[in-house]
């Protein structure tokens, strides 16, 4: 059955967005990512204009992350305190990133910077997570011991920062500066890349803030929820690019997928989750590398996307 999308001005077979929502929602519930880096290009492939695809995806993520946050909250996996500090940083970082993009666009090399940031960030994060989680799995096989404290030089410096506070749910003590700064950093990058930044925020929480993987997923979803509420409103208000009909089709699948993901995630070990996320991130990286190196079938396209 086909449904006409009033803002995208196109018609889609309803099974496609519902199925897409289900798949991406599953990843969202499993890994605590919004899935924008997967969903937006797939929607463009369905014939949705890129600006509408990105804006509608953020609307859909509001539903998926509400569903996911709710499921993880019931499981006791959301660190609200940490989430709020990350949000404060992320919000200001997003504003800086938007200004930076305006500057890059005026310079005329915005597309190059976006693509390179995408490939480098996804590549580095994917490779690092893959190596680290495989090593950690091997270590655990050798000896089921306590987690290495990770008190490197970097860790020691972090512990000396002022405004140390205890994050009860995550079981860690950090300076307030830490989540605000890294939230800000991810916010800047996310604005440049035009994504929610979940795939960057998750590694920051795991490797820098040293939070337990399951709490990371719940807290990341909580953070993404608020970011996407803001983005949905701004896109509707300024660009008129949110297609509510399409968002409904996507969220039918994604809200269910997020619940299934949250349940399924409990059955997987933290390292298994990290390996899977690393593989997905690397597959997307390879796809983008192919996109920019192979000659496109058409040399003209709609504006707005990247």
């Amino acid at each position, binding site marked *: 059955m086909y449904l*006409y999308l009033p803002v995208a001005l*196109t018609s889609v077979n309803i099974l496609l967005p519902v199925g897409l929502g289900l798949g991406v929602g599953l990843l969202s519930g499993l890994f605590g990512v919004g899935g924008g880096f997967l969903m937006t290009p797939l929607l463009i492939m369905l014939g949705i204009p890129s600006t509408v695809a990105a804006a509608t995806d953020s*609307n859909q993520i509001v539903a998926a992350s*509400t569903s*996911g946050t709710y499921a993880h909250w019931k499981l006791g996996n959301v660190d609200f305190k940490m989430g709020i500090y990350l949000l404060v940083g992320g919000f200001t970082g997003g504003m800086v990133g938007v200004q930076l993009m305006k500057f890059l666009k005026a310079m005329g090399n915005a*597309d190059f910077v976006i693509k390179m940031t995408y490939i480098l960030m996804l590549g580095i994060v994917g490779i690092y997570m893959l190596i680290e989680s495989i090593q950690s799995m091997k270590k655990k096989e050798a000896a089921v011991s306590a987690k290495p404290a990770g008190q490197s030089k970097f860790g020691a410096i972090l512990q000396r920062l002022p405004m140390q506070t205890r994050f009860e749910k995550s079981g860690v003590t950090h300076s307030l500066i830490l989540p605000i700064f890294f939230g800000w950093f991810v916010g800047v990058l996310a604005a440049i890349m035009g994504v929610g930044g979940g795939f960057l925020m998750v590694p920051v929480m795991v490797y820098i803030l040293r939070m337990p993987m399951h709490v990371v997923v719940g807290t990341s979803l909580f953070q993404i929820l608020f970011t996407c509420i803001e983005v949905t409103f701004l896109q509707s208000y300024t660009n008129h690019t949110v297609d*509510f009909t399409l968002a409904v089709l996507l969220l039918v699948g994604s*809200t*269910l997928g997020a619940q299934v993901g949250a349940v399924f995630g409990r059955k997987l070990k933290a390292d298994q989750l990290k390996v899977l996320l690393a593989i997905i991130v690397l597959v997307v990286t390879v796809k983008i590398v192919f996109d920019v190196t192979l000659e496109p079938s058409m040399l*003209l396209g709609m504006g707005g996307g990247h």
Partner: protein
Amino acid sequence: MNTTFKAIVLTAAVIVLASFSMAIEASAELTAKANHDHITIDSFYHGSEVSVRGICDPDVELVVKITSPEAHQTLKQKGKVGGFLWMNVGTLKIENTPNLYMLRATKDMGKLMASDESEKYIIGYPALSKHAELSPVADGSEKDKWFGEYVKFKENSKLFESTDGGFTFGDSGGKHTYYMKFAWPYQAPPGDYLVTVYAVKGGKVVEQATSKVQVEQVGVVKYLAGMAKNNGALYGIFSILAALGAGFGVGLVFKKGGGAH
């Protein structure tokens, strides 16, 4: 007296000329009627069909053209950066071309008429290319290259089409009739479209007839599109609340996600 005589001669001349032109028209009879002059886009719309029928002389070739009004369009140009990376490198501005251009002729367009005649009526891609203005393009060959890319992009979106064949002819009440149909793409946005039928004889357009197709959104589609455009803030809040509600709703229903497991 003299002036009265002049007036009589002038009137007679006008009558003779008028009857002469009527005789030309009568010799090349052509009518056009689009079956679907009002296409409505509702929630289940997945494109439509536009058929054109009418009366024509038996010895003419026909060209049916559907166009939207000419508009300013911009598209992103992809190009190589650093020798191997493909990315957006600029913006191509296209003027004097319609967003939708569908053409169907009774036989191969190239054999139908000379280029100056097709350019006069903007029939066929080469004529449209000549009529269009593209910028930035350095020279004619670059214009041809980018116009070719533009046509490829438009054909891919189903908004451009140029083919031949698919006409059926018959007789009705001693008149020679024609019939043909286009698959109307769902990608064509709401608006007014002009159907023009050209009768071609001896390489020249001898007659033309027009009809209109109006595409309009109705019901929920019209309401949502209007709200998104004219009341963005309310639309945004409504979309967010609906998403929050759906997320919570599914969370509540889906008990397994909770501590029960």
